[in-house]
């Protein structure tokens, strides 16, 4: 079994933390993993992407080939669309519907229409959800929670354990906040 995931967003939105959690879970589960990250200039508010490949057999390429991704997991709606050529026919898009408006004009309508036109898509009002639940720092973990049901190669419980592992150094309060965020995400994901 293999899963190719594209993580995308805007520099600073925390997509690498999602990758770190999945990476920890994959390693604990004895899966092979390759994760290509973007560092350097683009991290300054530009488009960022990380390809995450999980498999129980050997993985060769660090990059996800076009048309191969099972999931696009995005912190920003336009950034989800940017990587559609990587998605295979039956693949899922799980994305925040909250635009990050650091470009002018932001193509609000085009983005909304394109997302609505996709077959398999889960959208989350991450701004609203994190505000209502007072978890402003954990939007990325809410998104991961929403995708937990479709990642498949890793169970939600394995991801939960990795959230504990990764945030442990930051104290119990941060761990609890992220576990809560993960549960909220699962709930929203399950509804769609």
């Amino acid at each position, binding site marked *: 079994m293999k899963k190719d995931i594209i993580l995308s967003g*805007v*520099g600073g939105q925390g997509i690498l933390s999602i*990758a770190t959690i999945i*990476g*920890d879970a994959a*390693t604990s589960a004895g899966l*092979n*993993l*390759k*994760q*290509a*990250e*973007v*560092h*350097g*200039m*683009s*991290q*300054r*508010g*530009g*488009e960022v992407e990380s390809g995450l490949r999980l498999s129980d057999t050997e*993985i*060769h*390429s*660090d*990059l*996800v*080939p*076009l*048309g191969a991704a099972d999931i696009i997991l995005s912190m920003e709606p*336009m*950034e989800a*669309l*940017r990587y*559609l*050529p*990587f*998605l295979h026919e039956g693949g899922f898009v799980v994305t925040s519907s909250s635009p990050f408006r*650091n*470009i002018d004009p932001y*193509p609000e*309508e*085009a*983005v909304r229409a*394109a997302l609505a*036109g996709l077959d398999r898509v889960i959208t989350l009002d991450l701004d609203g959800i994190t505000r209502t639940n007072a978890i402003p720092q954990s939007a990325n973990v809410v998104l991961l929670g929403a995708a937990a049901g479709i990642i498949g190669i890793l169970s939600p419980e394995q991801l939960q354990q990795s959230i504990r592992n990764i945030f442990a*150094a*930051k*104290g*119990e*309060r*941060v761990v609890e906040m992220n576990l809560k965020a993960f549960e909220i995400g699962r709930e929203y994901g399950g509804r769609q």
Partner: protein
Amino acid sequence: MTQIKLLLGDEAIAEGALQAGIKGVYAYPGTPSTEITEYIQHAAAARDNGIHCTWSSNEKTAMEAALGMSYAGCRSMVCMKHVGMNVAADAFVNAAMTGVNGGMVVVAADDPSMHSSQNEQDSRFYGKFAMIPILEPSTQQEAYEMAVYAFALSERENLPVLLRITTRLAHSRAAVRIRAGRTEPAKRPVADDPSSWVLLPANARRKNAALTEKQTRLELLSGENPLFKVLLSERPSGKGIVTCGTGYNYVMENGAVEAGFHLMKIAQYPVPTERVREFAGRCGSILVVEDGQPFLEEQLRGIVGGGYPLKGRLTGDLPRTGELNPDNVAAAMGIEKSPVLRVPEGVVPRPPALCQGCGHRDVYIALNKVLADYPAAKVFADIGCYTLGALPPFCAIDTCVDMGASITMAKGAADTGLHPAVAVIGDSTFTHSGMTGLLDAVNDKADITVVISDNLTTAMTGGQDSAGTSRFEAICVALGVEKEHVRVVVPLAKNMDEITRTIREEIDYRGVSVIIPRRECIQTLARKRRREMSKNNQETAK
């Protein structure tokens, strides 16, 4: 005992160097090489063993310090991005002439597709130029193994060894099996052989002859590298692939051997000529798959001769420039892929930008305001976050070429009478390569205004220490800039009147002046605050 760790290619190299028992790493930050040194800085093994790991002022000082450590009998590593090799080239090429004592490994991280760089130069050319062995890993595991091997090879051959990687390996993470413990390399006395280390022409001629003679032996060694591979297809189609580095991964992703290709993977240079000739004899044609410039392809052309069907970047079978990926390699292998989804209309690029609240923003707002009154003004900028001042809404700079070029280009332009000639340079770039240029300007009483935009860190690469922090006024005055023309301001909107007045006064002064807008990078500031907060959280939890 082995341990499995999830590591970037960069971090795997750091683990390899620790395993090999280095006494020090020397480096200047540069994407995609920065994480090698950072990993060592955070490693317990580095603290426990007193391994030198603070940042150097630039790649040349780093290379020379590493050579000095080798001279003293210890293993040393020096790391940089590909353009850093240009800065360090003098020391690098001549280190091949002196040879080494303790093992010395030079890591060059190339950036095909220029994700974070101003050119696409391929460091393997430097290795060939210096006539030393080059190692090129394909995977994170190989990066670790090769780093360990590189030190032994360096000591055995009495030469520095170049370890060449590309962005995709440097910044991709995978599980790496790490052997426990640290090798204690055999103790070597300090070098005591001036005839090797004093490169007077008489000595240098002898060393040059010896190095040249060694090349045949180095070629043979490349063919014996444990990671050199020839994979023969059971259903040969007559086609062959010669590949190296990350190219190997894409070829394997596309099932080359199953598809009938014979495969040769080069792991070490100089190119093992005889092995290649033999392999070419087995195949009717060869596709060369290499990330970077057509280094291998050009040499293979010489080995197989003009009539042999050789394909690669030079023939257009692979893109002439830019990074390889599984898709362009598949196309070159003749594999048809089904069409993929398109990017919907309306999706527009999102270029990087200076952070909201960044001090460089205030500097450019002030500069633009003042320079609106000087239509002939040119702004010579430099390498760092502030290069983003080239983009809207600022469009504030006219040049950005190489580390330090702001001051020297402004000086050269001012020498023609161009006024105002303004240089914009960051604090870390100034100590990297700006100080000598400022001395030139002082000596010629050049009519330039230098802005050292000081955010107290090396920001673009993630906030490493900056070599001159808290000493910039002293450095400028010591280089001969008049004290009253070294001005410090705080780049905040509320100070805009003072900043614009200062810039105006120094532009109107027809000599060398330095303005230092100083305010901490908001990213490093935020990181510090987060660290303190999590420390407080943990203490409350206790």
